[in-house]
């Protein structure tokens, strides 16, 4: 469980990224921070592993104030996956995955075994182990990034727009992989994105942020769609337009779902889901 207690962050240049932010992130589920750029979502994420220190307030992991922990040790037990993978360009795929294991003095052979097993977990061919990041596709690099994040078997996985820089097809593939992984592993995932569709797909809990880290609404995707807190949220999730504003139409005795553009989106199965 991660708790944000009236957390604020003002950067040295005077920008107030976050003000009085309160939130509890439940364990073993995915919480998505979603908002447009400048809403402080990345700042909030980076406070969890102390890559950013809050100006005021506390962040607690399972009741322990992170400010009282050693930052380096803290980071080594939290998985971190970022946009553009952040891999070390001069190290092979396997070395990148096992970086933190080796920092923690895991014997080389054991680290190697774990690294190769993790490649299987994230769907990477073991034959790629000796390649360098620049020899991989963007999607493969992100998989390596996820494998590295999982290497120390962290309880918490922080993901900062991890699929933001890959093409839509690969992104869909990676999102499905993450859902599958999360079903198996049940980590406490904090995921940052500006893409509401991605948030709805991946999140058990969605936190919609306005500028300055103000929570516009939080809840499950269903709750937010059913009852948007205000016009900002309704507009942001697109509840009144496009493929989310669905209506029903009877055709030949079956109920067809029609989207806002009047296109048929699917067939309604009563009682399903």
């Amino acid at each position, binding site marked *: 469980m991660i708790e944000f207690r009236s957390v604020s962050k003002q950067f040295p240049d005077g920008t107030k990224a976050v003000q009085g932010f309160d939130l509890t992130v439940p364990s073993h589920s995915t919480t998505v921070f979603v908002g447009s750029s400048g809403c402080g979502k990345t700042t909030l994420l*980076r406070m969890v*592993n102390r*890559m950013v220190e809050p100006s005021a307030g506390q962040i607690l992991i399972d009741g322990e104030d992170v400010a009282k922990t050693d930052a*380096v*040790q*803290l*980071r*080594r037990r939290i998985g*971190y996956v*970022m946009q*553009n*993978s*952040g*891999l*070390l*360009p*001069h*190290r*092979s795929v396997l070395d990148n995955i096992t*970086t*933190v294991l080796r*920092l923690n003095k895991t014997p080389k052979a054991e680290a190697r075994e774990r690294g190769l097993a993790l490649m299987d977990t994230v769907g990477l*061919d073991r*034959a*790629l182990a000796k390649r*360098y*990041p*620049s*020899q991989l596709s963007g999607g493969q690099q992100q998989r390596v990034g996820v494998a*590295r994040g999982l290497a120390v078997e962290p309880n918490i996985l922080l993901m900062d727009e991890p699929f933001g820089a890959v093409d839509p097809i690969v992104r869909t593939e990676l999102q499905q992989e993450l859902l599958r992984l999360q079903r198996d592993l049940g980590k406490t995932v904090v995921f940052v994105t500006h893409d509401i569709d991605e948030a709805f797909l991946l999140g058990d809990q969605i936190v919609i942020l306005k500028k300055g880290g103000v929570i516009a609404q939080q809840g499950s995707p269903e709750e937010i769609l059913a009852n948007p807190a205000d016009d900002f949220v309704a507009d942001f999730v697109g509840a009144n337009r496009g493929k989310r504003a669905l209506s029903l139409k009877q055709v030949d005795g079956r109920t067809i779902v029609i989207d806002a553009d009047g296109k048929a989106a699917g067939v309604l199965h009563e009682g399903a889901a």
Partner: protein
Amino acid sequence: MNLFAEAFAWLTSEELANSSLPLGEAFGQHLYFSFVTVLIAALIAVPAGYLIGHTGKGREIAVGITGAARALPSFGLILLLVLVLGVTRSELGAFIAFVLLAIPSILAGAYAGVEAVDRRTVDAARAVGMTEWQILVKVEAPLGLPLLVGGLRSAVLQVVATVTLAGYVNLGGLGYYIIQGVPLGRFDQILGGAVLVIALALVLDGLFGLLARVVEPQGLASRTQRRRADPATAETTASA
């Protein structure tokens, strides 16, 4: 006979072989001065450059100092230091002057190398739990090595050229022949000495050129492109 032919004749002459400073010894002295100078300069400039590059602090001061040091007239500096320290300590004076000349290139190579590392890579290294020291040693130093070697390379060239002046303060080296030749009006000897310095500089530059290739970290874009051009690896990439 033209001057070049005379210079080469001098290089192979009995006179050089029986000179008060044999050629081998002059080479030895020249290399000794150059090597020790670059070593001392590197011991000072590399840690300083890494500190500046890693912290991003003191960059303006470093740029200022290196710019000023580059503008120092080496000949004047050697004479001044030898006069100030006294002729009995002329070796020390010469070393100080040479080191001061070598520092700017090495310092610039060290901090530019660290600075050139993608900040996102450094951020990622920190985020997975590397200490600042580990970031420097495992990420910034290896990735910045080609630029550091470039700095060392230009420092070596500059020092090899400048060590010629050691001859002027009676410390020998290949400059001895040039400086001895001037009052004698022996242009073949002056040119012959100069050719030796040039040859030494070219050989050392070539060695550093090779070193620069060796230290280029694997996996960087330029190497990858070379590999991609190779059809055999291109095929395995496609099947992977």
